[in-house]
């Protein structure tokens, strides 16, 4: 059988195909490798950028380090040398912080040698292996020198400092620890740089701990209080525009309502005027026989480890005021659980755990975290559990019962009911507010829980959260200073009964609007139909 003869052109064509296949494969492999390399480069650049950003954020603390006065001998350790050593020592921590975020440990040899270099290399290698960056922070170093060599090239000291770290975990901060350690350090001078050579942790305690023996909050179960937002300068505007006369009058109103406690808010960072006006507010409260519940860190929601030094100073500055006998307890954060999704549960628990511990240590007052749904971990670190409730009063007993199971006294820190009749689809009137108050107070009394209403005044001016209009109508006192029926409920007067007229009346604005809208709609439809029919007639001639 004769095989068909292939032409030269066909053979060339086959040869080209045969050559093209491996060439294409090689090109494809090269392309994939290039993309992989590019991805790797981009990833590394991103990590380095993250590392530098983190070091930049954590390095802004002006009071990061301080030396003890003792002169260790045998050589005199002068001020300039101390500054030099401290500078290189802090840079060593910065270098580790950078390496643990970026995975780039190339700079560790500049500040470490010997055993300490082995340690940091091991940590960074593990971070690289895990692929998860680690945020570390150190602050409040207090260095007590114990030895300075005759040749000026070896120094030993004990450094007591605070630290924090956490591992990035899908937007959260896993394994976080905030503590204080005493670290013995030996540094040696080589090539003009002081390097950490030996170190040993001699003491390490976690600052964030559960409160095994919560402080008592006397009489909290019978507390009758109110949340205070100044009428002329609500929320953040209170401190810069503090008006002592207005506060005096408002607190007199609170006292006249038979209430015994006022809750107010302290933003973070501390606003202008806070240091001057907070003592005044405490004085006014004291004059009217009121106790206070300061609520700290208002408006703050970053919960960044990098802010801890500033947090420390904020609490240090506030400590004398928070220790005032007028302070019934301290709420360290308002409705913290609303930030769980954004900040991450672990991050928030660690951060607020630190704040709870440090507030309790510095102020001596019982501490709590304001929450809608109490968090068991934060509750264990608090002296009492705070619950906020704005829903159906029928659901309050169950919420209070759940909170009580956390093993701490419970306080209903916020409840309220707006009186905005035009708020659709849920308009309220003042009678409803009074009945709501009565129902909530009954539930709280039945549960043996103290309470604080939201809020004293309606707020006709100034900024309110979210610019929601209902926020302006939550007071028990109207903007003109007259009392709403809910104020009477606070004094023990029964609320007005709900009549059929009341029930209908609250819907009247809605019905009026709906009627108006229907008239407009029908009119527009008729007009449209007429116009359309006229056009058709015109077209048909």
């Amino acid at each position, binding site marked *: 059988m004769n095989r068909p003869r292939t032409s030269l052109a066909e053979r060339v064509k086959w040869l080209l195909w045969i050559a093209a296949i491996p060439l294409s494969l090689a090109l494809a492999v090269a392309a994939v490798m290039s993309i992989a390399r590019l991805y790797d480069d981009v990833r590394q650049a991103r990590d380095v950028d993250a590392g530098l950003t983190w070091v930049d954020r954590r390095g802004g603390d002006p009071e990061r380090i301080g030396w003890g006065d003792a002169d260790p001998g*045998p050589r005199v350790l002068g001020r300039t040398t101390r500054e030099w050593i401290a500078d290189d020592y802090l840079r060593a921590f910065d270098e*580790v912080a950078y390496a*643990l975020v970026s995975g780039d440990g190339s700079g560790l040899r500049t500040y470490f040698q*010997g*055993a*300490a270099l*082995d*340690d*940091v290399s*091991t*940590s*960074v290698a*593990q*971070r690289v292996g*895990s692929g998860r960056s*680690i945020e*570390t922070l150190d602050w409040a170093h207090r260095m007590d020198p*114990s*030895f300075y*060599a*005759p*040749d000026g*090239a*070896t120094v*030993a*000291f*004990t450094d007591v400092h605070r*630290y924090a*770290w956490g*591992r990035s975990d899908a937007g959260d901060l896993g*394994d976080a*620890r905030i*503590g204080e*350690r005493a*670290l*013995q*350090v*030996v540094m040696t001078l080589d090539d003009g740089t002081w390097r950490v*050579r*030996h*170190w*040993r*942790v*001699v*003491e*390490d305690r*976690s600052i964030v701990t559960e409160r095994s023996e919560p402080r008592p909050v006397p009489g909290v179960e019978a507390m009758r209080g109110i949340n205070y937002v100044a009428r002329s300068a609500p929320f953040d505007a209170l401190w810069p525009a503090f008006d002592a006369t207005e506060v005096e009058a408002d607190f007199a109103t609170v006292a006249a309502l038979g209430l015994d406690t006022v809750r107010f808010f302290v933003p973070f960072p501390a606003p202008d005027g806070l240091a001057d006006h907070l003592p005044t507010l405490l004085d006014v409260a004291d004059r009217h026989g009121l106790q206070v519940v300061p609520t700290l860190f208002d408006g703050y929601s970053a919960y960044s480890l990098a802010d801890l030094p500033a947090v420390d100073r904020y609490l240090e500055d506030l400590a004398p005021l928070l220790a005032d006998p007028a302070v019934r307890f301290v709420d360290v954060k308002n409705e913290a659980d609303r930030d769980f999704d954004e900040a991450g549960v672990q991050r928030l628990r660690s951060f607020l755990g630190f704040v709870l511990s440090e507030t309790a240590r510095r102020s001596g007052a019982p501490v709590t975290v304001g929450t809608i749904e109490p968090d068991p971990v934060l509750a264990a670190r608090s002296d009492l559990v705070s619950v906020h409730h704005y829903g159906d009063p029928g659901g309050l007993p169950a919420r209070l019962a759940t909170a009580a199971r956390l093993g701490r006294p419970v306080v209903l820190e916020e409840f309220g009911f707006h009186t905005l009749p035009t708020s659709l689809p849920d308009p309220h009137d003042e009678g409803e507010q009074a009945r709501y108050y009565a129902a909530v107070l009954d539930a709280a009394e039945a549960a043996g829980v103290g309470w604080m209403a939201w809020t004293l005044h309606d707020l006709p001016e100034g900024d309110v959260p979210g610019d929601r209009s209902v926020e302006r109508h939550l007071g028990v006192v109207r903007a003109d200073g007259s009392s709403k029926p809910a104020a009477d409920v606070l004094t023990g007067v029964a609320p007005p009964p709900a009549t059929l007229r009341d029930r209908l009346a609250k819907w009247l604005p809605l019905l009026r609007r709906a009627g108006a809208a229907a008239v407009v709609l029908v009119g527009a439809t008729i007009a449209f139909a007429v116009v359309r029919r006229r056009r058709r007639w015109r077209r048909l001639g």
Partner: protein
Amino acid sequence: MKPVRKRLCGRRRRVLGGLAIVAAALFVLAAALLARRGATDEAARASWPAGTNVAVASLAEPHGLVFSVTVSAASHAIEGVPVRVVVTTPAGPLAEEGTLSADGRARLVVPSVRAGVTPYRVTVGGVGEAIAVDGVAERRPGDPVEPLVAAVAPKTIRVTNRGSRGAPGLIVHPVDANGNVVDAAAMATVALSDGALWTGEVPVRELVGFSFLPELDDIGTERIAVRADEAGGERAEIAFVPGLPASGTLTGVVTVGPVDGRDPWEVRVTDVRDDGGRRVSDGEAWTITIEGARENLFLTRPVLGGSLQVVLPVGPTLGSYELRGRADVYVSQPLELRAEPPFVGPLQLRLTEPASGPALPDDEPVAGEAERARLEAGPFVDELGAFLDDGFPVVVAALDAIDGEVVRFDVGLRDGHLAWSVPPLPRGVQELEVRIGGMTARVPWPPAPERGE
């Protein structure tokens, strides 16, 4: 054929239907995922019956911290449950993960080898479980290992009549196999110059072993050996060397020289000794200074073999110079050096007028040398009768009425003579000054006419 409108409706319906199906599928998927997550959390929480006990034991092994985790949960399957341990160190956290065996045990090794306290957290279970055990592991340093590194500070000490300047000290960091500083004291043995042995303890406090060592009264060497338990190391040495120069004999080898720079001064310092009369070490600094209106000179040279010799250029102006030797706080008696003229005889100038009269600035440029005034001096000969070198520097300055230098010219001798054609000079020049070998002489300018008018 369907009407266009109908077809569009049909297509739109299909698209909308597809979108609805996709949305429904996504919704179902998300719901399933959420439900599953919730179920997992719930199962995890529910997976530990009441009375579950987690025991953690930590042990410091040479290669790391070993954590033995034992979980006792009655009638509960715990095999494969994840276990995680995280330790906190100043270098950052270290973590290790594993799983429980069927009998509820897990063994995790964290590569932490540093002595001291190490806080840890052991977590048993996955996401949503709350069993965590916190504790602190402690590691003590092991036995010291070789080589033991001993550093002496300072390595060299001067001996003076007031005793040695700087007490000798010994710094030791005895470390174990993991680099942890061992707390036990080291023993130092010092061999003194006279052959005596000194033995002392070097206590280790806060990671540093330090002890002062005996001082020598005279120059010599201390050899130091350190041991910590069985570990030894290399020998260290401290050299006790003479003190700083405190005396020396300053003599002039050549104290008179001509200003021409051809023959320099030469001084010698010998017998340089410290305050104890010991010859100083080679390399100690000795400084020669000349201070005064004519010259300010500061020159440091090393002493070699207790002496040094210095050659100095002769000062630029004629006269006496006062030289001193200095070292540390020692200042020698002054030595007088003299700078003299490089030639014999007075400096006499001759200025000759050209045939066409003196050159003036407003004149047209002259054509040849013969039309210029000539300034001449010489011959200049030294004390041997030899001409000064060709090119010997001569400065001719044109001065105005208040002795201000209007312009200057650097010219040189040739065959022992100055023969210089004066170029056109600015208006106002009153004199020409010649400076050579520290001597000066002047002639009025322009030269007086020789012929009568």
